[in-house]
């Protein structure tokens, strides 16, 4: 077993261990979960260290035949796009265990589901076989449904089923696209699901689907266009891109803190990862037809998400909508097809992963103490919780893209990239930054500044505890680190993104 297999499947050992723990052993379950998420974190760190940043080729590749009757391989490998995301997943799941320490009901089940979720997420990022990719993609759904549905807030049932149905509706379309591709390959590849080989075949223009439909045209559209659109819808629901976004605020608001962290930090990135890896990487000859629409959807998400976030009174909902807005940058940057745009998009995925995860932890801290999330129900907390204010400021400034923070670098790159292709859209996107700054500063002001809300004193609103700090400090550190030395991240992204830019025929 090699590195990626160990990273992906080591949490399963934790699942088994927890399964055989006695019934009420809560602390043991927590400890086992912490250990089982720590192993992938260590291994992923080692992977990042050992990763060769001079090449765009897949590294740490493992390939063994899995299902011979369909030509499916167990084929995993990582490149510059997936390495940071695997590492971020491992980090957030590890922190997630500590953020869930206070969960008292059904701890064993909770921790097992959390570990299963990690297997699914890391599996998706590592898969280089489309079939394997899909299996991991779907494995995530059920744990997530239970984590929101059992341990969530008052409207958890609704939120959980909405999340599940939206995602499933997208993923069945994706399944059809995968099956269609498989049939279109028609025996020309030994491993018809291999993502690199499929990409090569599709980009070379040899795969048209003409063996399936007459001259490769189906209902007036080329076969590949349909495949592209079906895949895009599947990924767009996960991002979520604006017309498909309504599951997100509900899921976020009802989910327990740690699950919101994972949802915002990682699960949303799966959608954009799919768009970059599959939609753009596999279909560089189809993608230009949809670039304008994609960029437009990104812009709409930026402006709309920011405006709706501004109108929220619920702290968590506000952060959720700000995620919609921030994920719009990823789409806008990706669809610009320029080197800066793609680098910015990939970096934004990571930086938003850290800053939004931090913001959800911050909301969790306030909720644990006050048992509500009304922004106007706080006020003057700076006096009671100065450390809390400090951490919150870092998270919020990173989210609004203050220079020196990680969000600034990625958003600036996206805007540079988009400017070269869509100057009008890039200028309008700046408006999104302004609105974001407005609602974030306004929120900071309403929660922390002004006179202290009489309801709170040092008894019922103590400053952050050591455990809470332990979950927040690493993320805050990353927000600053990648703002000051973005090169660490960009170096690893660059070869892969350069290759993708060249494939898409973009400049820069």
């Amino acid at each position: 077993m090699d590195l990626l297999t160990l990273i992906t499947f080591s949490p399963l050992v934790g699942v088994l261990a927890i399964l055989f723990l006695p019934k009420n052993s809560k602390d043991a379950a927590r400890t086992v979960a912490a250990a089982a998420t720590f192993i992938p974190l260590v291994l992923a760190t080692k992977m990042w260290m050992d990763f060769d940043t001079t090449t765009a080729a897949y590294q740490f590749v493992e390939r063994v035949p899995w299902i011979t009757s369909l030509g499916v391989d167990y084929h995993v490998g990582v490149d510059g796009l997936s390495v940071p995301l695997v590492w971020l997943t491992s980090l957030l799941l590890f922190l997630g265990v500590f953020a869930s320490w206070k969960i008292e009901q059904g701890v064993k089940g909770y921790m097992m589901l959390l570990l299963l979720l990690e297997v699914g997420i890391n599996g998706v990022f590592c898969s280089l076989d489309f079939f394997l990719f899909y299996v991991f993609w779907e494995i995530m759904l059920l744990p997530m449904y239970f984590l929101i549905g059992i341990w969530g807030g008052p409207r958890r049932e609704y939120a959980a089923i909405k999340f599940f149905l939206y995602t499933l509706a997208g993923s069945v379309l994706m399944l059809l696209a995968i099956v269609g591709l498989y049939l279109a390959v028609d025996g020309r590849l030994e491993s018809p699901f291999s993502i690199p080989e499929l990409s090569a075949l599709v980009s070379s223009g040899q795969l048209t689907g003409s063996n399936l439909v007459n001259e490769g045209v189906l209902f007036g559209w080329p076969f590949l266009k349909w495949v592209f659109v079906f895949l895009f819808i599947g990924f767009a629901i996960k991002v979520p891109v604006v017309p498909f976004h309504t599951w997100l605020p509900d899921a976020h608001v009802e989910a327990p803190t740690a699950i919101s962290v994972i949802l915002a930090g990682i699960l949303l990135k799966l959608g954009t990862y799919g768009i970059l890896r599959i939609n753009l990487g596999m279909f560089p000859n189809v993608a230009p037809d949809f670039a304008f629409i994609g960029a437009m959807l990104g812009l709409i998400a930026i402006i709309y998400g920011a405006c709706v976030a501004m109108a929220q009174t619920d702290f968590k909902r506000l952060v959720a909508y700000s995620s919609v807005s921030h994920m719009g940058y990823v789409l806008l940057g990706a669809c610009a097809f320029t080197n800066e745009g793609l680098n910015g998009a990939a970096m934004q995925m990571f930086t938003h992963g850290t800053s939004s995860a931090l913001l959800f932890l911050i909301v969790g801290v306030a909720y644990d103490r006050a048992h509500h999330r009304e922004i106007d129900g706080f006020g003057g907390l700076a006096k009671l919780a100065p450390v809390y204010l400090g951490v919150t400021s870092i998270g919020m400034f990173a989210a609004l893209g203050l220079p020196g923070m990680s969000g600034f670098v990625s958003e600036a790159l996206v805007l540079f990239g988009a400017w070269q292709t869509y100057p009008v859209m890039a200028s309008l996107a700046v408006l999104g930054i302004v609105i974001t700054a407005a609602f974030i500063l306004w929120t900071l002001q309403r929660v922390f500044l002004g006179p202290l809300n009489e309801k709170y004193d040092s008894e019922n609103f103590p400053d952050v505890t050591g455990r809470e700090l332990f979950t927040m400090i690493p993320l805050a550190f990353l927000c600053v680190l990648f703002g000051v030395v973005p090169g660490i991240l960009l170096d690893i992204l660059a070869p892969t993104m350069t290759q993708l830019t060249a494939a898409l025929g973009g400049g820069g």
Partner: protein
Amino acid sequence: MTPEMIADLKAIAPEIWLVGTLLVTLIADLVIGKRSQTTVGVLALLGVSGALWALMGAGPEAGPESGRAFGVLASDGFAGFFRTLIISAVGLVILHGMVFRELESATRNEFDPMLIGAALGACLLVSTDHLIMLVLAMEMLSLPSYVLAGWQKRERRSSEAALKYLVYGALASALMVFGFSVLYGVSGSVWMTDVGRAVATQWDTGSALVRSAIGMATVLVFAGFGFKIAAFPFHFWAPDVYEGSPTPVTTMLAVASKAAGFGVLVRFIDAVFLGETISADWLARFGWVMAVLSAVTMTYGNVTAVLQRNVKRLLAYSSIAHAGYLLMGVAAMVTLSGQESPINLGVQSLLFYMATYYFATIGAFGCAMALANRFGVETTDDYQGLGWSAPWTSSFFVIFLVSLTGLPPTVGFIGKFMLFKASLDAGLFWLAIVGALNAAVALFYYLKVVRALFLRGDREPVEGLVARGFMPLLAHASLLLFAVAVVYYGLMFDGLSAWVNSALL
């Protein structure tokens, strides 16, 4: 005895085992039935295991040289596939019926011979390509099923179920036999292959009258098969019967009876309509009709299942939906039959889906029975919070429902994958999209059960009736085994594929 006769007898050894078990259990009931509740059941289980063993022992090479026993029973891999599903399903139904008692104890013992009789009919039905034998086998399956549906005779809804089933069943049989007689009139033969040859030539060259006779006969025959597989618009009996019957019987009807129906349907279509000489025009029309039936059946089953609260009834409607999915395989099989290809993807996907449906449905009904037996629950409202009292059974239930939905890493996903593959390959793009979107609808109502088990209720463990002893252990072990199999075959299905490929027509 001549060697041919011995070979013939060997080919039907499983059926001989079933007949023997039938007689032994009947006599055992007379002699010791009053004193022992379990003896008859154990005997029946042993007999069914024997039949299964005989079936496993007989590879395709062990059959008679002509490929058919006594001239009318094909001993091919196709028949072997369906007989394995049917016999093992009935064995599990007997086991679950014994442990998760729902039947009146006084009449418990006659239950097993009835089930075995139905299994015998089902086995003959999937083996034969002789129309008269087919009718006999169909009745042999149906008559015990009518009795079984009304087993709890003091319960109003059980009697109603039996009566409804009988009336619809009799009508369907009559229509089917009438259809056969028309086909006999057209072809002068009761062999499917001869009928097929005659139909092919008459469709191309015959008069308008003959052509319409063939069309009418097709519709009539499909009424008979459609009734057995509970496909729209011949499904009206299914929800009431599934709900009213004791759950073991429901399982039998949903799995064994449906498998037999699909087995004979596929064999009939393959022999009669997909001969080499049939015209492309006929194939296109026929494939289109099957595709429409498939889409309507699955959509109807899924949409009405959404409204159900009674878990048995919910699973009944879902099994109508699954009949629709299986028909997707039939549609692909018909459409693809014109192409030159070593294997017909349609048949392959249908058989694969049948196997996945078998695992998940028996498992789901088994879990429903286990919960009903332990807590006396029947509707999703009663199920609330039981996941915290019976975590294992409930987790298995979730696995089976996920498989029925068709999500990885369960075998149900592979079943759906195969079906989508076949229908896309057949150019039935719209059907594949309908099937895919139906999976999302299905998820919604399967999750109703999951939601009740785990998301609702006060999450405090409730005391239930816990049966101890060897048989309950065996029954629970069978659920565990099926849950493991559902996940295992979802990840490693090469073995299952090989088995399916050996069973293609």
